[in-house]
């Protein structure tokens, strides 16, 4: 269920969105699959990262998409360093 937290996207260049944990889950899950994690492991990792980010976001009225990405990468780093690397850098490959 979406939390009542506004996400500022690309420094305000795109309209704000309500934080949706399922989008975070999908991106972490896809990143884990990209580095050849097994499906169940990828799902567990994504759920764990989501719970860490949700607890970080709690009581904040507004966060940026970069904040979410940073917190997600930090949580992922301990669980899956290869996936964390790709998650952090996927926009800087090209």
């Amino acid at each position, binding site marked *: 269920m979406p939390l009542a937290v506004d996400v500022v996207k690309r420094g305000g260049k795109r309209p704000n969105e309500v934080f949706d944990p399922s989008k975070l889950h999908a991106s972490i899950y*896809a*990143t884990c*699959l*990209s*580095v*050849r994690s097994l*499906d169940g492991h990828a799902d567990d990792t994504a759920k764990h990262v989501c719970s860490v980010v949700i607890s970080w976001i709690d009581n904040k009225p507004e966060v940026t998409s970069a904040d979410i990405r940073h917190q997600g990468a930090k949580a992922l780093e301990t669980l899956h360093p*290869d*996936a964390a*690397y*790709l998650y*952090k*850098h*996927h*926009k*800087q*490959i*090209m």
Partner: protein
Amino acid sequence: MDTFTALSVIALAALIHASFQLGVSTITLLSSHGAGKKVAAGKISRLVGSFLAGTITVTTFLVFALLYFTTTLELWQKPNSLWTAISGALAALGIAVWIFYYRRGTGTPLWIPRAFARFLTARVRSTSLSVEAFSLGLTTVIAELPFMITPMITATLALAFLPADLQVLGAFGYVAVASLGIIVVAVLIGGGHNISHIQRWREANKHFLQFAAGTGLVVLAFYLYVNQVVAVAAAGAGIQ
């Protein structure tokens, strides 16, 4: 230019071409997004193979087209001004590679405009058919032409000095060596290597690759200037 000199120029130009990274970046993203979307390994291999076929096709086409114009217009027999221009272009390109082939910061962001990088990334994400991957291969080679075209022209000018039967072999040799970077990454991906490890290696070695490509271009420029301009001028003046 004798056969050995021509072959060494072609080999160096092809190695410089191989060090350009847009194709490698695209193939890395292509397989990463495919795996992230649970695309079957066989289909990812087909997409990667089609991408590779696209890059090889357009490189082959360009090399043979340039070779055709070079030999038809007899550009290789033109006076020193052509070689001076080529040497200057290679040296300028070498300096450009040293300065801005990679953008500053983490990862391996390339010189291409960010809007175009986002467009290519979006195309990679939506690629699901082999024909799309093939056209993506064509696009990446064309997009990197500002850097690739000068080594390619240099190689075709050198190819024109070879005997006719060696020209075709030399042109295919150029294409094979120029595509080596993408072929190696495609083989690694097909062999089950982790994309993250490949990308980490690229990031760790990007400055070396940038320096090597830039230096290669400057060395090639100097070599051609001495061999085709200074030596010819000296011979014309009767200086041994």
